[in-house]
């Protein structure tokens, strides 16, 4: 009984120590826009005012010939690091860094092409990055 409790305690301490050597960091820029959020846009009918009412003001408006392009940008970045050298700091005067880390940033752009009257002509996701995840494996 006592041995079981000691083993459980040891496992808990080991898990807590391992946790202190991990780092989870996240960066988000603007809210992501999903295909279902833009399903209301009908090329040839929807106006810029209607798009703005639903999605907010775009991050960028650019000229393209006689038309305009409105772009919405959003990013989601995840970073995970594990430094096993940190475990040594509890009993060693030297703490070498033994880290594995990986950061991934999902950068997506949603754009609408508008004619001179401000009516949507085309819409597209310029990038559709794969969803990011916390993963320390750098190879």
């Amino acid at each position, binding site marked *: 009984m006592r041995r079981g409790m000691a083993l459980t305690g040891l496992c808990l301490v080991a898990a807590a120590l391992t*946790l*202190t050597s*991990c*780092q*989870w*960091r*996240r*960066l*988000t*820029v*603007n*809210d992501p826009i999903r295909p279902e959020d833009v399903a209301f846009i009908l090329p040839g009918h929807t106006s*810029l*005012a209607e798009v*703005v009412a639903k999605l*907010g*003001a*775009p*991050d960028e*408006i*650019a*000229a*393209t010939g*006689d*038309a*305009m392009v409105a772009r919405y940008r959003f990013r989601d970045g*995840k970073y995970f690091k594990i430094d096993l050298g940190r475990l040594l700091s509890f009993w060693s005067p030297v703490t070498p860094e033994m880290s594995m880390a990986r950061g991934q940033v999902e950068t997506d752009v949603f754009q609408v092409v*508008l*004619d*001179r009257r*401000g009516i949507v002509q085309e819409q597209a996701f310029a990038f559709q990055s794969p969803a990011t995840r*916390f993963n320390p494996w750098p190879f």
Partner: protein
Amino acid sequence: MRGWGILLLLMASLGLLGGCAFVRGHFGEDFDSDAIAAIQKGTTTRADVAARFGAPDEIIHAADRDIFHYRLYDGKMGYLLIVSRFNIKGDHLYVFFNRDGIVEDVIYGKRTDRLKFQVWPFGD
């Protein structure tokens, strides 16, 4: 025994406090909603807009119009020992002018009012 428990809890709480941080970053000036509401389509001029909001961050020429673009970014970061989250959102004001320099349209979007301090990096 109970005293020791409280002391341990207090020490753990202090340890956590030592490893936490809340950071805020602000780029650009807040938009005055009254000034935005005062922009009248068909009457307000380019000079009026520049006088109220200052020089724009960007001037775009598109579809025979000049567009003044003003930006504001706000960032909030919560940090607790091994986890942290940094959220950034931007507000944008676009003022469209016709060939005569008169306001034709105004687009304003505010996202920074929904910006939150978050520490937990998982989930949405």
